[in-house]
């Protein structure tokens, strides 16, 4: 006796590597997972929103977290920052972002960048769900 319970959730005609590519591309470049699947408007809006949040965070002199500081809250914030993918890598390479928060509004900048990373992770997972067919497009 067979059931449909364990049927693979894959859309017919789509490449099997597309879900993984959408997930990784969406993480590295905000909105790229949706753009890969020709969701131009959604991808563009996600890209603009996440890049703008990250850029505003930098402009507000927010802090970019680095790994291995030993503080639990720093580790959590680092995980959030890491969600920005290449934006985080570029910020570290060009030494952007402050090491310590020096003005009151800079803390907003720090939170903007951490939340941008978390939103980017949500967006990459959404692109993966679209590619697998788990979410209707």
């Amino acid at each position, binding site marked *: 006796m067979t059931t449909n319970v364990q049927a693979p959730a894959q859309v017919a005609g789509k490449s099997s590597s597309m879900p993984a590519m959408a997930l990784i591309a969406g993480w590295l470049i905000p909105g790229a997972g949706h753009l890969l699947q020709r969701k131009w408007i959604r991808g563009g*809006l*996600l890209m603009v*929103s996440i890049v*703008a949040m990250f850029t505003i965070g930098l402009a*507000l002199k927010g802090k970019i977290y680095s790994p291995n500081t030993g503080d639990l809250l720093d580790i959590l914030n680092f995980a959030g920052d890491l969600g920005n993918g290449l934006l985080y890598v570029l910020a570290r390479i060009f030494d952007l972002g402050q090491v310590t928060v020096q003005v009151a*509004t800079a803390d*907003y900048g720090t939170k903007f960048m951490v939340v941008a990373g978390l*939103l980017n992770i*949500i967006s990459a*997972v959404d692109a993966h769900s679209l590619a697998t067919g788990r979410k209707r497009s």
Partner: protein
Amino acid sequence: MTISHFGAVLLFALFTSVVFGITQRSEPRTMIRFGAFCFVLFVGGTIAASWIMWLIKH
């Protein structure tokens, strides 16, 4: 760059609502409705919390 506290709230609510709307709903129409709902909740919640803090202080 300098920004007011309320300006930061509006920008945060706007960008976050866009992402929530796109990722949490399937149809374009419901995306817009949910995004607007999130925006109102973010801004309204912040204003309500601000008044509560003001009332506690006074």
